[in-house]
């Protein structure tokens, strides 16, 4: 019984390892851009299941009070209200296709990719910290 519990714990740890990695990244990136905590987020992506474990984020059910919108695979279906908010994408396509997307984090060929658009950030009077500037274009 003890062994089974240990194996289950290890499996849980392994499956959650990448989630933890993503959560840490979001906890580092978003608060460095949006200074107020907790950051009010609206997202239709599965990422909300990861972000809800952090006390730095407040996941909302609508875009109205959201400070930032995180868009996933179904980014084409989001409302206009959401489209007007600063958008952070979880795919290259979302990052590329939305004018208001200021950054993205996604996996490509098994490697994590992080991107920022300085022009969009400036439009929303947001500043990228020095440590992340190398990912901006």
């Amino acid at each position: 019984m003890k062994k089974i519990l240990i194996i289950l714990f290890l499996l849980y740890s392994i499956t959650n390892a990448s989630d933890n990695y993503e959560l840490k990244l979001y906890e580092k990136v978003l608060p460095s851009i949006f200074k107020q905590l907790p950051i009010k987020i609206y997202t239709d992506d599965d990422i909300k299941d990861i972000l809800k474990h952090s006390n730095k984020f407040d996941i909302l059910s609508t875009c109205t009070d959201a400070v930032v919108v995180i868009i996933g695979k179904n980014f084409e279906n989001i409302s206009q209200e959401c489209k007007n908010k600063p958008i952070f994408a979880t795919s290259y396509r979302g990052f590329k296709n939305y004018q208001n997307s200021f950054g993205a984090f996604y996996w490509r060929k098994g490697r994590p990719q992080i991107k920022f658009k300085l022009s969009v950030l400036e439009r929303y009077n947001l500043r990228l910290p020095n440590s992340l500037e190398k990912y901006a274009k």
Partner: protein
Amino acid sequence: MIEKLKIKKITYLFNIIALIILVGTVAIYTVFQDTSGFIQDTNIKANIGYIDNITTNIANRIKDVSSANIYETLKKNKKLKDELESSLELFTTNKYRYVYLLDRPDKSKDTYRFLLDGATNIDDKSEFGEEYTPLNMKEWNKVCQEKKPIYFKHTDVKSLWLTYIKPIIIDGEVKAVIVIDFSLSDHKKIIKSLNMLDKTFEIAIVFAVFILFVILFFSYIDNKRSKDLEDKNIQIQNFNKTLQEKIDQEVEKNRQKDQQLFQQSRLAQMGEMIGMIAHQWRQPLTAISATSGAINMKAQLNKLNKETAIELSDKISSYAQHLSSTIDDFREFFKPNKEKKEITYNELVKSVLSIIEESIKNKNITLVKELNSDTIFYTYPNEIKQVILNLIKNAEDVLLENKVKDPTITITTKDNILSVSDNGGGVPKDIIKKIFDPYFSTKTKKDGTGLGLYMSKTIIEEHCGGNLSVSNITTVNEDSKSLDGAVFTIKLGVNND
């Protein structure tokens, strides 16, 4: 000594064997490590050879159809791009997970750009011109600098994943790179076996080290024990050397002690002798006093004629002679005469009784003599007399102390045995074994020194070569009453020379 050397040799042999096992295991482990690395490298190289062929074909194809600016060529000719991408998709399998083509538009940035992607999964398929930031930038840059294909292992991934990067060189410049991420998981069994062997060797080394330490530990203990043993042997040898000296010293001490005891005993006997002389003298002195009183009386009454005066003075002279002879007897008795003489028990007993019999009778003690020995002994008469006197005095003391009714001392001689017995109650069983010990006495401190019987036994057994023993007896008197008593028996050798 030989046994010790043998054990030492065995210990050294064990140490050497343990050391050989350890060195051997480490050597085998090192060889295995090299072999393991060689097997893995060979395995990887075999795969690299295949990949190199594929990428060479792709590179040649691209070179054939593209200008120096591959990005522009593919951007303008979508059909060509799709065609090339389809050919990359053909190579994409579970083993060759990612096959893609990139260029580096800005050499100053660590950013590449997707040109072709053989991914079949739409979620992981990159767009044409999509920026891409590799993780192992140093390795990627090396390809551009050295213009040679490279491969490297992914250390952050548990399974054996490798990335192969081949440069496409046009006009001497690296225009793009073909990248293939592939897995060697199909060789998992080999890797697993090698890993298992690796672990086994590690355990073997740990075990060998443990064995070595255990053997070293026991060797240390053994050496320490041997050293302790050697030290103790030296101590024993030294002790043996001084033991004889100590024995001699102790013997001398004992001799001196015996002398002291003899002296003490003699002094005690002297005291007794004075008592006995006083007793022997009392009657003649009384008689002298009475006679001198009679002389005085007759002189005052003018009845002292010449005959009476002579008669009474003769009496006084006779009494004085008796006193003198008493002194002579005692002097003779206690004379420290160390000469052996031929003598019988009866003579010895008579000599003793001449000075003590009167004293015994005055104390209302019956003295029974059964003297039946004519055996002649060649021994020290005075010493034996002292022993007999001591035994009789002891019997007398017991009878008086216990206030025995009809006290009796019986002196018996027969052949070479002389016994002095009494009816004073016998010697209690719990002290009978200690009765001859020095300073052991049942008398009050004032009366007994505890040396009499010890000295008697020493005289009889060590000086005269005989035996002195004690036992309890039961006798029946005239009224058929049983009386307990002690009997001391002297047994001398017939030919004591």
